[in-house]
């Protein structure tokens, strides 16, 4: 039983200790927000992740309802925030847009996802 308690304390310490490495990058929030309705065309799509990203292997693509890519294919990581990925978009007409992302955190774990936003007049 004492042995178990020692292991338990060690496990608890492991869980509560400050970050010791890196992990999967999850979407923290996005601009435009996930599933949002907006009235003005965004200049860019920005996604904040929970981990620092590997710039070469991370990307965002934006598609319109006809599945045509409408971003400017200039994905880059923000200079001041290594967990913020951005891509510029051309002025968009009203419609529904799909944002598809695939990122690799600096420890090489891959995560993917997609969400939509709607531009209304």
């Amino acid at each position, binding site marked *: *039983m004492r042995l*178990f308690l020692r*292991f*338990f304390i060690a*496990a*608890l310490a*492991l*869980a509560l200790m400050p*970050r*010791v*490495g*890196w*992990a*999967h990058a*999850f*979407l923290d*929030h*996005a601009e435009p*927000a*996930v*599933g*949002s309705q907006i009235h003005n065309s965004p200049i860019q799509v920005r996604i904040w992740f*929970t*981990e620092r990203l*590997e710039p*070469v*292997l991370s990307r965002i693509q934006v598609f319109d309802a006809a599945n045509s890519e409408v971003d400017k294919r200039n994905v880059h990581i923000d200079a001041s925030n290594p967990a913020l990925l951005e891509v510029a978009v051309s002025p968009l007409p009203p419609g529904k847009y799909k944002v598809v992302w695939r990122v*690799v955190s600096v*420890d*090489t*774990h*891959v*995560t*993917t*996802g*997609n*969400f*939509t936003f709607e531009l209304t007049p």
Partner: protein
Amino acid sequence: MYLKDFRSPKLAAQLAATLISLTAVPLPAFAHGFAGDRFFPATISTDDPFAASELSFPTITAIRQPGSPSTKNVDLSADVSVLIFPRTALSIGDGFQIQKAPNQRALTGFDNAELNLLYEFFENDKHEVITSIGVTWGIGGTGRRSLGADSFSTFTPTFYFGKGFGDLPDTLPLLRPLALTGTLGLAIPTRAGNRNVSADPSTGRETVSVDPNPTTLEWGLALEYSLIYLQEHVKDVGLKAPIDRLIPLVEFAMQTPLNRGAGGLTTGTINPGVIWSGQYFQVGVEAVIPVNHHTGNNLGIIAQLHFYLDDIFPKIFSKPLFTP
């Protein structure tokens, strides 16, 4: 290309740059709990279909068992799983049990150890589907018999599946965070029955009885609603930490003996609860509700701390130990 070509400084520089870029860009690692965009947590009462490096420690179960007298059972268990080959994990687990009857000293001891080999044989990212097969070896004789540990081994070949509902149409957005995982296994004991020999003290006559060990269908389901998925893929509803990382779920952990006089008597528990999943670990707690009076009459509780070893120690565990 010939060796002499490397005498060209331009070509050599290009080759060097290519080699450097190949070694500097890390190869991506796909890891625990993902099928496409879907993150599945490690379920608590039933097994999940993922081959991954992870540690469940501790899992604490507390429930009062029926009987005369009824006993209060607490089980403290640990389970470690390591990705040994691509899509193949080996895990070992054991538990320490404390049984306490009223006015009696507590009985303590280990459960039988279990070894499991699991192989993910199909994954469809678009439809968030994963299926696996595995076999569990309940190692007979490694636990304390007086606490109910079997003296014989049991082998349980099992089919595992997971399905996320992110592919539902846009007209059903609030159902897209739903996911289902499940298992279907056949627990085959290596001994058909246990012989008990007792002697009548007055006559001295020996009586032999046999307790059957039936083959048992072990089946489990876990229905999950991921607030992580809701926030990341469907709609940012403004949930803040720690709520945005919660996965409410209900698990069904059931057993149905199939033969040897015990056929058809299903027992099991329904376990509603919640899991919080962070970057490196998850914690979960569930109520344990017996499905019928054969299982018991008392409410129990199960709680688990679970570590994602591949995230905590990526240099060791983000890749399989052996890659052919």
